[in-house]
């Protein structure tokens, strides 16, 4: 295809992506270098018969004017990145100097908002991804062995948790595990503790969110693997059977290697989607114990009346860097493949 024709064909799509994905990243970066204006204070002196008094008041008009003139705020350089709500270098330095053991040190770091969110996001991603891949593979093998009549309906049922709106899906589960819901009430009955709540402790909240994550993404890995199973060549399976391989050996040495390219595809997709975990925290109102990177950005933007654009921008930039690090192995491999093909 000629360069000229290519440009015309790709133009609408490229324009949309440049305007609403690439430029916003630039805009986020610029925002992150600024902080909101401080309020303009006026000191007025009122002198009476008993001497002079100084009083400070907020000059609303001047503050408003300043905000209108420079909506970005005032320049702060990388200050927002290293303040307490983000990378918190100063606090970590203090913690490193003052704590005796590693566990104490990590405890202090774990209480800093950014690192807390990062920890939850990473733990969520690191648990949900492998569990979903293993269970997905097991269920795909199970469904593949079902009688033909049952395969369609089982796929239909499995698609529901995956395609349902994340916010709605997590609400449905939340209403069930809530103190008065069917599962929550049953758990209270079993442990004979009417105040037991899954939201009470950090560990339980994290578990609840991770269980939701598995429920929501398992169908994706299951269906991808199931489709892959349909392409396993029959003659190789036959040959392995003739050679005396048991069913288990055939699965392990023929089927699983055949699915390996799929495993890396599913891992990539799951990593991308799990890293942006957000809606379940809103639905479960779990923010007391579990906050993800996406959630703290949302929270900064929701700050009523005076959204913290600078802070949200800084967290966004750090999150984007995280995504790139996460994708780096894939990008490097694609780059190598491409070069090999080119030469």
């Amino acid at each position, binding site marked *: 295809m000629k360069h000229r024709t290519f440009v015309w064909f790709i133009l609408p799509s490229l324009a949309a992506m440049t305007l609403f994905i690439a430029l916003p*990243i630039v805009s986020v970066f610029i925002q992150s270098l600024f902080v909101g204006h401080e309020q303009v204070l006026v000191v007025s002196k009122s002198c009476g018969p008993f001497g002079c008094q100084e009083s400070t008041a907020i000059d609303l008009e001047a503050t408003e004017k300043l905000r209108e003139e420079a909506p970005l705020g005032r320049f702060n350089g990388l200050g927002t990145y290293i303040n307490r709500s983000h990378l918190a270098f100063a606090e970590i330095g203090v913690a490193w100097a003052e704590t005796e053991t590693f566990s104490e040190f990590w405890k202090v770091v774990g209480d800093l908002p950014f690192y807390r969110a990062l920890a939850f996001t990473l733990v969520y991603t690191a648990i949900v991804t492998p569990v979903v891949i293993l269970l997905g593979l097991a269920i795909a093998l199970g469904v593949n062995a079902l009688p033909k009549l049952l395969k369609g309906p089982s796929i239909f*049922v499995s698609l529901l948790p995956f395609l349902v709106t994340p916010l709605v899906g997590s609400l449905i589960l939340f209403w069930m595990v809530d103190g008065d819901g069917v599962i929550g009430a049953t758990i209270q009955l079993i442990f004979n503790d009417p105040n037991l709540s899954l939201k009470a402790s950090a560990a339980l909240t994290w578990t609840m969110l991770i269980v939701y994550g598995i429920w929501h993404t398992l169908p994706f890995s299951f269906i991808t693997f199931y489709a892959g199973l349909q392409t396993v060549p029959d003659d190789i399976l036959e040959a392995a059977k003739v050679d005396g391989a048991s069913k288990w050996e055939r699965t392990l040495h023929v089927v699983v290697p055949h699915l390996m390219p799929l495993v890396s595809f599913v891992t990539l997709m799951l990593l991308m989607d799990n890293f942006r975990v957000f809606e379940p925290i809103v639905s479960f109102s779990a923010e007391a114990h579990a906050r993800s990177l996406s959630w703290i950005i949302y929270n900064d933007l929701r700050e009523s009346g005076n959204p913290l654009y600078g802070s949200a921008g800084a967290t966004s930039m750090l999150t984007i860097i995280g995504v790139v690090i996460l994708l780096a192995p894939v990008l490097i491999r694609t780059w190598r493949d491409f070069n090999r093909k080119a030469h």
Partner: protein
Amino acid sequence: MATASETRMTPAKAVSFSLVGLWLFIAAFPFLWTFWGSFKVQADFFSKADWTNALWGTQTIAETGSAFTGQGYFGAWVIEAFWQNVINSGIVVVFTVIISLTFGTLGGYALARSGFRYAFWLLIAALVFRAMPHITLVSGYLLPFFEWNIWGHLPTTIIVLVAINQPFTLWMLHSFFLNIPKDMDESAMVDGCTRFQAFRHVIVPVMWPGVITTGLFSFLLAYNDFTVTAMLLSAENETMIPAINSFLGTTQVEGKVMYAVAAVVSATAPLFVLILFFQRQIVSGLTAGAVKG
């Protein structure tokens, strides 16, 4: 023909079947439970005393005289004007899908037919964009949108959703167009068509299966979106999903949580129908990028 060894029940088979059975139960039960419960009163759906109340509707009978009640639906659709949000969702979803597919087919076709290095780089850039958490982009939109006075309107949200949708649409349609033999459009060009005429008269008639599959996923992205719609739409333009979320803020206090339950069931019903009719296309779309490796 199934041989005896294939039909015989072995312990391994029993374990794997029960795993499948357990999964199907876990997958379906929450939906059945919520659907059934949406026709009950709150005291039944959230029954601390006895969970079977939700099944038989003990409190519902006591309060309304019948085991099923439409109070939740009436509250959501009529009192809280959920229909308005449904209309907004409809507008956003229809336009997002149409525009995404138009942009995506043109771009995907170009990427599939261009052998130059920049096509590869565009696809890699699209992959990185695909991985971007949506909220990071939203934090870049707010300030400029406020400045230009385009915040809160449906068209703004539609074009943003189209853009966010592009990376995925491009990848999917690109791999679909790769499967359509090059000879088809090239022979049309030998016969004197321009590139666009070849696309219009040769490719368009055969591309519909791929476009429908991609369209289903564009639909899901626009329909399921919470991040963008919650942050970019003003209260009167809200779509269904952020509306359900703001329901919770106001209704939990007033004991009207059943409105939210009814709204949740209403929002899930179209997805249910979608899966019912398009199961095959959805499955093939999920694995489109994958099976080729």
